[in-house]
C-alpha cells in the first residue's frame, strides 16, 4: 500500500445536490491526494455517481465548493473538467462504437492537420500510453469489435491522453471478468504509483479491500464514515453502508431435492459473431435446487441463458424441457407459460422498460393473463392491488406505482424485475448476474428471495461471475469454459482455487 503522503489535489466541501424528490448529496465532504486510491462506497442510490458527476461538471451543486490543488474552482462542463486534468470513466461507457479507437480518443481534441483529422499522431500518442501502463489496444479497430475490458482500456486511454491527473472510475469492474479485473488493478496501481489520484467506486467489497488506500462511505447522500482496509473488513464495510448487520452469504436450509424440472441435453448455440458459443451442454436442475454457473464472462453464459429463454435459436439436436415438456420449439411466451422465468443479465436493456411505470414493469410478463385482463381489457383495480403488494413485499423504494422506472436506482429496478419474475411461482428460473451492480443490502435481499423460492421447490440457475455469490448461493456449481461444461461440483468442499482452474479450462 502506498502511504498517503501526496498533497491534496481535490477537495469537495459541503456539496449538496438535489433532484426532484431526492436529496442525492447532502453537504458531502470528500478529498483525494496525489498517489492514492480513494474509494467511494455506498448502496444503490447513495449518491456516489452524483457526487462524481458534480466533480466532472455534469451537474451543478446547489451548495458547496470544489477546490483543485487548493484553488476554489467552479467546474462548469465536462470539457472544463478535462482541461482541469480530471478524467472520468463512467458507469456506462462513453464511446462511439462505429468509430475507431484512435477516432474516439481524438474526439474533441484540436487536430494538427485541420481541417483534416490527424489519427496517425493520435495513434502514436496511444502507443506511448499503452507502453507506459501496459494498456495494449489497436488504435485502428472499431470500438464495437472490442471486448468490454478492451473498451474500458480505451476509456482510460482517453483520460490519460488528455493528461488526466485525477481519475474517477465509477463501478469499472461491474462488467469485467476476474482476469480483466486483475489487469485493471495492475494498471490502476501503476497509475497511483506514478502519482495520480484515483477515485474508485465498486459494490464488490473484496475489490475495495484489495485496491483502496482510503474508503469513504455514503448513505442516503450523507457521508457516514471513513476508514482504511487496514482498520476494517468486509462485514464491517457492509454494515457501515447499510447501517445494520448484514449476512454476506444467505443461510440455506437443507431441502430434499425433488424431480428434475429443467433438463438440457446436447444444447448447442451460435454466438453473435457466428462461432459456436454453447457447445453440446447437458444440464439438469431439480426441484429445490440452485445450480450455479461459474465461468469467465464470454464463455457462453449469456448465450446459454438466452437459448433457454427462447431468445436465441438453438442448433438441431438440442433439447430443452421444463417439467418433462419439450420447449425447444416454443417461443418465449409459451416457455414462460410452461413455467419458465428469466432475470436477464442486462437489467436496463432486457429486464425493464425505463419509460414504463413501476406498475407497468411489474405486469410486463403477465399483462395478458386473465388475472389482469378480461375480454382484452385491463382490470386496473386488480393490477393496482397486485403491484402495491409486490412493491411492499420486495421493499421497492419508489415514490409511487406511477413513477417512471428509469428514475429508480439499480438495486430497486432489480427488485422490481425479481418481484415480477417470482410473482407466479415459476417452476424454473434463469437468473443472470442477479446482483451485478446491486448494493449489498439489496443483494442480500435478492439472495434470500431466491433461496426462499428454491425452498418452495423452484429449480434455479444462477449465472454469475462473482464466485462469492455462486459459492454462497448454489447447491451445485457447473463451470463453463469455451461453451463446454468443464465439470459440475457440489458446493460442499468447492474452493475458489478449484473453480478458478476449471474456469481457466484446466481439468484436474
Amino acid at each position, binding site marked *: 500500500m502506498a502511504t498517503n503522503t501526496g498533497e491534496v489535489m481535490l477537495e469537495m466541501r459541503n456539496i449538496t445536490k438535489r433532484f426532484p424528490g431526492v436529496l442525492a448529496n447532502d453537504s458531502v465532504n470528500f478529498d483525494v491526494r496525489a498517489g492514492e486510491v480513494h474509494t467511494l462506497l455506498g448502496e444503490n442510490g447513495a449518491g456516489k455517481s452524483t457526487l462524481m458527476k458534480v466533480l466532472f461538471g455534469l451537474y451543478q451543486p446547489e451548495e458547496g465548493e470544489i477546490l483543485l490543488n487548493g484553488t476554489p474552482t467552479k467546474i462548469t*462542463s465536462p470539457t472544463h473538467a478535462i482541461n482541469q486534468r480530471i478524467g472520468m470513466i*463512467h458507469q456506462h461507457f*462513453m464511446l462511439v462504437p*462505429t468509430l475507431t479507437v484512435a*477516432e*474516439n480518443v*481524438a*474526439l*474533441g481534441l484540436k487536430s494538427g492537420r485541420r481541417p483534416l*483529422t490527424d489519427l496517425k499522431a493520435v495513434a502514436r500518442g496511444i502507443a506511448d500510453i499503452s507502453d507506459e501502463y501496459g494498456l495494449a489496444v489497436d488504435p485502428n479497430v472499431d470500438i464495437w469489435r472490442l471486448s468490454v475490458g478492451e473498451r474500458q482500456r480505451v476509456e482510460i486511454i482517453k483520460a490519460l491522453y488528455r493528461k488526466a491527473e485525477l481519475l474517477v472510475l465509477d463501478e469499472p469492474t461491474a462488467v469485467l471478468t476476474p482476469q480483466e479485473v486483475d489487469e485493471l488493478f495492475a494498471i490502476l496501481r501503476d497509475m497511483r504509483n506514478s502519482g495520480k489520484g484515483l477515485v474508485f467506486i465498486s459494490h464488490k467489497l473484496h475489490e475495495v479491500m484489495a485496491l483502496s488506500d482510503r474508503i469513504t462511505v455514503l448513505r442516503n447522500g450523507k457521508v457516514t464514515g471513513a476508514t482504511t482496509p487496514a482498520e476494517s473488513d468486509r462485514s464491517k464495510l457492509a454494515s457501515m453502508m447499510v447501517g445494520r448487520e448484514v449476512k454476506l452469504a444467505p443461510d440455506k436450509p437443507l431441502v430434499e431435492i425433488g424431480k428434475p424440472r429443467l433438463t438440457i441435453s446436447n444444447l448447442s448455440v451460435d454466438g453473435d459473431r457466428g462461432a459456436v458459443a454453447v457447445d453440446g451442454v447437458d444440464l439438469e436442475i431439480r426441484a429445490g435446487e440452485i445450480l450455479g454457473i461459474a465461468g469467465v464472462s464470454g464463455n457462453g453464459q449469456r448465450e446459454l441463458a438466452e437459448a433457454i429463454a427462447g431468445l436465441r435459436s438453438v442448433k438441431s439436436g438440442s433439447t430443452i424441457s421444463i417439467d418433462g415438456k419439450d420447449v425447444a420449439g416454443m417461443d418465449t411466451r409459451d416457455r414462460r407459460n410452461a413455467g419458465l422465468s428469466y432475470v436477464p443479465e442486462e437489467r436496463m436493456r432486457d429486464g425493464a422498460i425505463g419509460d414504463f411505470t413501476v406498475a407497468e414493469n411489474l405486469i410486463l410478463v403477465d399483462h395478458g393473463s386473465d388475472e389482469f385482463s378480461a375480454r382484452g381489457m385491463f382490470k386496473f383495480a386488480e393490477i393496482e392491488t397486485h403491484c402495491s403488494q409486490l412493491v411492499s413485499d420486495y421493499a421497492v423504494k419508489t415514490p409511487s406505482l406511477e413513477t417512471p422506472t428509469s428514475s429508480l436506482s439499480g438495486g430497486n429496478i432489480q427488485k422490481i424485475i425479481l418481484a415480477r419474475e417470482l410473482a407466479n411461482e415459476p417452476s424454473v428460473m434463469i437468473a443472470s448476474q442477479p446482483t451485478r451492480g446491486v448494493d449489498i443490502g439489496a443483494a442480500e435481499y435478492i439472495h434470500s428471495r431466491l433461496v426462499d423460492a428454491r425452498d418452495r421447490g423452484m429449480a434455479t440457475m444462477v449465472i454469475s461471475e462473482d464466485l462469492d455469490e455462486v459459492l454462497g448461493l448454489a447447491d451445485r456449481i457447473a463451470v463453463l469454459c469455451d461453451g463446454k461444461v468443464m465439470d459440475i461440483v457440489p458446493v460442499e468442499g468447492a474452493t475458489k482455487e478449484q473453480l478458478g482452474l476449471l474456469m481457466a479450462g484446466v481439468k484436474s
Partner: protein
Amino acid sequence: MLEYLEAIFSVAVLASGIRLATPYLLAGLGETVGQRSGVLNLGVDGVMQLSAFFAYWTVLVHENLWLGIGVSVLVGLVMGIIYAIVTVFFEAQQGISGIGIFLFGLGFSDLMFQKNVGTPRFVKSLPDVRIPVLSDLPVLGEALFSHSVVIYGAFLLVPAVAWLLRKTTFGMNVRAVGENPQAADSLGVSAQRTRFIAILIGNVLAGLAGGALVLQLGVFQPNLTQGLGFIAVALVYFGAWRPSGVMVGALLYGLVAASVLQLKALQLIPRSYSDIAAMAPAVLTIAALVILAGRVKAPAALTRPFARH
C-alpha cells in the same frame, strides 16, 4: 426480349437516367450528411420546391443562371437555419417537423408562383457542356460527358462528401454525434453545433437539387418535384448512409425510370399497363432493400434529439 435489352441498354437511356438521377443524388447527398449527424429531414421536398421556384423566378427576372443557382443555395441555407433551430434547439420531433417544412415549401412555392408568375414561361436552361476529349469517346462518351455543369458537380460531390465524412475532423464529429451524442458531448464536441452545421449542409444541397431540377427544365410549375425529395430521403437508407451508396440508388432510380420511358416510347410496353410500369422504380427500390437491409445499421442516434441534463 433482345429488343427490350437493346432499348434499355442504350446511350440515350443512360444519358436520360443520369439527368433524372441528378436531383435525387444532390438531395440524397445532403440528407446523408444530415442523417449521419442523427437528424432526419423529411422536409427535403419542400426545400427543393422553394429553391426551385426562387431560382426560376430569379432567372426569369434577371436572366442570369448563376444568380439562379446562387439563390437556390441561399434558399436552402435559410430553410436549413429554420429546420436546425426547430430540431436542434427545440428538440422537435424530426419526422414531423420535416413534414411541416414540406407542407410549407409545397404551399408557399405554389403561392409565390401564382402571385408572381402565373402562366409558365421558359427561362434559358443550363447548357450542356461537352467535355472535350472525353465526350468524343466511343459509345459512352456522349452519354457521360455531355451534360450541364450541375450534373458534373453533383457526381463530383460524391467523393467530396465521402471525404468530408471520412477524413475531416468535422466529419468525424458528425459521425460521432450521429452515433452517440452523449459521448461526443462528454469530450467537448458540441452535438448541437455539429448537427446545426450538418443540417445546413444538407439543406443547401437540397436547395441546389431544386435549382438544378428547375434550371434543367427551364420552367417551373407548382409541386414541380412530385415527391422527389421524399424518394431522395429513402435513397439515403437505400445507400446505407454512404455517398457512394446513395449515388448507386439515385442512378438505379433514374435509369429504371428512363428505361421505362424508352420502352413506352418504343411501344414495347402495352399502353394499358403504363401505370404498372410506372411503379417500377419504387418497387425495385424496395426489392433491392429487402436484399440489402439488415446488413447495415442506421446511425444509432438518428431522429433522437440530444439534450444535456
